[in-house]
C-alpha cells in the first residue's frame, strides 16, 4: 500500500448517472487485481473508494457516480491498493455467478472482465435498484439477468446450481440480512454451503483503509476480520451472519 498521485486523463459517461475516469497511475498500482480498490481524495473529508473496472498497460479505469465532477489533467491522491484479490483462480472456477443487490455491480466488473478473458462463463444478476445499471456498460460476453426487488430472479435455482463460484455485492447497510437470505437459499439448493463457493463482497465506508481504525470490522466465526485488510470478499461459511 502506498499514497501516490494520479492524474485524470480522460472522462466519459457510460450512463446518465455514471462516469468513468482513465487515470495515469504510479507504477505501484499497475498490477491491481480484481477485488482491490483505491481510496481517493475528493470533495468530502473522507477518501472515496474508487473501484477499477479495467486495468490497462499504463492506466486504470475507475467508475464513479455523476455526483462529483472531474476535469482532465486534475491530480488526485490515491491510497492503495486496498484489500485482496478475489479468491477466483483462473482456469479453476469456470462458471461464475455475480449478484448485485440494490447497488451497482461496479465492484464485480473487473472480475467479470478478467474471467471472460480467461474464457470462463459469467452470469450477472441485477436485483432491485441494481437493475438501473446500463446494459451497455457491461461486456457483451456476460449473461445479464434482470431480477426482482428481492432475492428472486428467473431460473434462480438453475443458475445457482450451475455456478462454480458466487460473488454477491449488496448495499452496505443491508448486506447482513440479504447475504443471510442468499446463503440460506444456496445452502438448501447445494445441500450445504461449501468453502470457497459463495462470497459476500463487503465494502463499508473506509476511514483509513490500512487496518487501523477498525470501522470496517466484519464479525467472523473464528476471529473478527477487517474488510480493508482481509476483504473485500468474505467466504459466507466464515462470517457470522445475523
Amino acid at each position, binding site marked *: *500500500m*502506498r*499514497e501516490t498521485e494520479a492524474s485524470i486523463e480522460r472522462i466519459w459517461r457510460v450512463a446518465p448517472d455514471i462516469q468513468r475516469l482513465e487515470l495515469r497511475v504510479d507504477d505501484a498500482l499497475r498490477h491491481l487485481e480484481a477485488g482491490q480498490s483505491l481510496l481517493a*481524495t475528493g470533495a*468530502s*473529508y*473522507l*477518501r472515496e473508494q474508487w473501484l477499477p473496472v479495467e486495468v490497462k498497460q499504463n492506466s486504470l479505469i475507475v467508475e464513479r457516480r455523476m455526483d462529483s465532477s472531474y476535469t482532465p489533467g486534475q491530480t488526485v*491522491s490515491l*491510497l492503495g491498493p486496498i484489500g485482496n484479490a478475489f479468491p477466483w483462480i483462473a482456469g479453476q472456477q469456470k462458471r461464475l455467478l455475480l449478484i448485485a443487490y440494490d447497488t451497482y455491480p461496479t465492484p464485480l466488473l473487473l472480475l467479470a472482465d478478467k474471467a471472460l478473458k480467461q474464457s470462463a462463463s459469467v452470469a450477472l444478476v441485477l436485483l432491485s435498484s441494481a437493475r438501473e445499471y446500463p446494459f451497455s456498460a457491461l461486456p457483451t460476453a456476460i449473461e445479464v439477468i434482470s431480477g426482482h426487488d428481492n432475492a428472486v430472479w428467473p431460473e434462480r435455482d438453475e443458475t445457482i446450481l450451475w455456478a462454480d463460484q458466487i460473488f454477491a455485492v449488496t*448495499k*452496505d*447497510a443491508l448486506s447482513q440480512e440479504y447475504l443471510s437470505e442468499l446463503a440460506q437459499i444456496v445452502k438448501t439448493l447445494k445441500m450445504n454451503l461449501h468453502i470457497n463457493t459463495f462470497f459476500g463482497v463487503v465494502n*463499508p*465506508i473506509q*476511514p*483509513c*483503509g*490500512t*487496518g*487501523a*481504525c*477498525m*470501522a*470496517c*470490522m466484519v*464479525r467472523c466465526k473464528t476471529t*473478527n476480520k477487517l474488510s480493508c485488510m482481509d476483504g473485500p470478499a468474505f467466504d459466507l461459511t466464515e462470517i457470522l451472519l445475523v
Partner: protein
Amino acid sequence: MIEITSSRKNSITVTSPVLFAAGTVGFDGSPYRKLLSMDKFGALVTPPITFAPRQPATGPRVVPLPSGFLMHTGLPNPGINRVVRDYEKKWKRSVLPIIVHLVAEAPHKVEQAVQIIERSQVVAGIELGVHEQTTMRELSTLLEAARQHCDLPIMVQLPLYNAVPLGEVAQYNGADGLVVAAPPRGTARDTQTGRLIGGRLYGPWVKAQTLRVVGRVVQYAEVPVIASGGIHTPDDARDFLTAGAKAVQLDSVVWTQPHMAEMIATDLSGIDATRTTRTYVWQDDEIYSVSIEPPPTLPELPNLEDVTQQADVDAEWKD
C-alpha cells in the same frame, strides 16, 4: 528530548512532540509502517482497551459529515490480557514508546489492568480514557485505584466538554499528564438506513473547540498537557504548542492524509519550523477584551472549577 509526563523516575521522554492519538495506527503501528517514517513521531497510543473483550458495534459505524465524520466502532478489542499477550514482543521491538489507552471502567478493573500492563515491562505509560459523564469524585476514585500498584506514568484523556474541571481533579489526584481532549461526541443520522448513530466526531473544525479548552487547562496545569483534536496542518499543531501544550496527538488526519501527518511530524520536530500565518505570539489579552464584574449578591459559591476546595465551600454553603 521532550518530557511529556511529570518528572518522576519513569517519566516518558520523546524525540518528537507529534504523537499518534489512541487507535489511529492500531495496536503496534504496523498499518502505517510502510506509509510513514515512524521514527519522526514521538509515541504511539494504542486503541482503547477494556478489561474484557468487546465486539464491534452492529449497524452503520461511519456517518460522513460536512468536513468530517462521526464514527462509532464499539471499541472492539480482545481485552487487556489478550492484547498484552499478543503484542508484548512487538512492543518490545517498537521504535516508538508504547502508551496503552486503558478504558476507565470500574475502579477494580482499572486496578487490575494497570498491574497487567506494568508487569509486561514493555509499556512506557498509560493513557486512562474516562467517559464523558465521569464525575469529579469518580475520577479521583479511578485514579486512586490506578495509582495503587503502578509506577508507570498515567496520563488522563479528558472528555472535551468537562476537560477544565476534570483536569484539575486529575492533576490533584496524581495524574502525570493531561490529554486534552477526547473527540466530542455527537449523534447523526445514517442516510442509508435512516438510523441515528451516536459516536465520536472528527474533522478540522474540532480544532477551534479544543484550542479554547487547551488554553484554559494550561492556565492551571502543573503536569504536561498533550493537545489532541482536529489537527490537520503543521500550523494547527504549532498553535497548540504555542498555547502551552508539550506535545500533540494526531488523529483522523493520519487516516485521510498520511502524507500530511508525516509533514506535521517533520515540520514540528525540525529546527526550521515555518509558520504560514503572520505571528507566533500567543496574544492572550487581545482575545478577551472585556473585563467582567463579579455577580455582587452571591457569596463565593462552589463552582465546577473549584474542586480542590469543594469540601470547604460546601461547608460554607450550609452555614
